[in-house]
């Protein structure tokens, strides 16, 4: 299967110290990639590099042909201006704007598409609400809806369950699972617990990419990634991340 994204030997830092070093990774069609690792390990930076928000020092990111603008980005909760006076509907509408069309007016079809997407993420009734008045889980769905507007083939999600209460988490996970039937999904998270039964590939990032594959991890690798003996998950969850030992 041809990869959607091929990352080779990616190295990057904000200052003089690299945050990512020699990272190589493949993302295939309808993949479900979980990127875990400690804070500061480069997970958000990896997504920013894929989206082109920052440029790498060395290495390459190659996209399968025709993938321009078909990347959906759901950034961390904290990155946008929650006090901006705008409704959920209008915020999702901004998902249409890109580097080539920020002159164009919105059309009837654009608004219809937004309505359909809002229904899909179960926000249609809240579409005229100010985003300031929405709960964490609702805002998360607005951010996902905004990314869906450009009909992406890959969805990149940065900490999609972190600022969301437990009860809403389940519905977000379900939503991501449903979307995965149509597109590849890359989830960055510092807490892999809720995703344990769902992922297909696991990438552990702490400046270097320590692991990337289908089978479960073992403790030695996790220790390397997190830098200390880690007792993860394990109890009472049907699919664990750790291999039995």
């Amino acid at each position: 299967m041809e990869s959607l994204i091929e990352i080779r030997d990616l190295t990057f830092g904000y200052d003089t110290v690299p945050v990512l070093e020699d990272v190589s990774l493949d993302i295939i069609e309808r993949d479900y990639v979980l990127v875990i690792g400690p804070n500061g390990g480069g997970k958000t930076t990896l997504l920013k590099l894929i989206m082109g928000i920052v440029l790498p020092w060395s290495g390459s990111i190659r996209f399968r042909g025709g993938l321009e603008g078909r990347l959906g980005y759901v950034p961390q909760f904290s990155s946008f201006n929650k006090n901006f006076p705008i409704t959920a509907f209008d915020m999702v509408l901004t998902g249409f704007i890109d580097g080539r069309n920020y002159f164009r007016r919105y059309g009837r079809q654009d608004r219809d598409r937004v309505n359909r997407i809002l229904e899909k993420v179960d926000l249609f009734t809240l579409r005229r609400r100010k985003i300031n008045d929405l709960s964490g889980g609702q805002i998360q769905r607005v951010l996902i809806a905004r990314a869906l507007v450009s009909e992406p083939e890959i969805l990149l999600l940065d900490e999609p369950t972190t600022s969301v209460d437990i009860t809403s988490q389940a519905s977000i996970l379900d939503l991501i699972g449903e979307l995965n039937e149509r597109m590849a999904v890359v989830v960055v998270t510092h807490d892999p617990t809720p995703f344990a039964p769902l992922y297909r590939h696991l990438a552990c990032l702490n400046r270097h990419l320590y692991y990337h594959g289908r089978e479960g991890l073992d403790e030695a690798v996790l220790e390397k990634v997190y830098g200390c003996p880690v007792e993860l998950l394990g109890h009472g969850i049907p699919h664990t991340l750790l291999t039995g030992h």
Partner: protein
Amino acid sequence: MMDVLSYTFMQNAIAASILASIICGVIGPFIVTRRMVFISGGLSHTAFGGLGIAYWLGANPLYGAVVFVLGAAVVIAGLEERIDGNDLLIGILWAFGVAVGVVFIHMTPGFTPDLMTFLFGNILTVSRSDIAIALVLVIVICLTVFIFFKGFVSIALDEDYARARGIPVNLLNLCMMILIALSIVILLQVVGIILVIALLTIPVAIARETTFHFRRVMLFSTLWGITICLAGLILSYFAELPSGAAIILLGTLILGFIRAGKWLSRRLFLERRAGEKTGEKI
């Protein structure tokens, strides 16, 4: 009072007020939502530096202000990746601008009455040519915002996401800084350097009390700007107060009333609700 309106200076003052209010409505909301108020304060005080240099050269102070403010805007946009992050640089530019102004004025012989106008504003001395310049600037600003509206809004809403989508954020930020610089220069004539910030923010604050759609904030800011400017002019005429200060005081008062009114109505609502509950229990 209608005789007053036949005077040229009054007509000019009204025209300048309307132009200034359009600026408040078009640019103000972006400044406020992007937390650029401090930057705007810094820019307006660097205008003072340009004034001083222009004076010393014997040129029209307004042109000096324009050049200096534009220069500062480009510097700020060029040096900073995140436009709303750098207090320190702004603070330094602010102080530097004022210091430059002070030095050059000190080196210029003679009394400088017009300078007071720029510091504190005197809309009643605005000339036809000043208005003509202001009109051109207003048209440029409105056209630019209209054309790039979606880009500006996406950046104000979520700058990282805008970058991710390929919107030329740095370019548009530079553009916005230049528009702000030009706006400040227009507003200088109405309320003076010291009060420019007030005119950029008070109408927006009032508008935000009444609506949460961005386009409507822009519209209402404009209307409130016109209201406080014209009312302030009337007040300053009859009470013989400096016009710029009268405008700002009136605006602040109105804002205060609206907020107090909302607070009061909420208190009454809560008390009535509490009263109903105890009523039920009995």
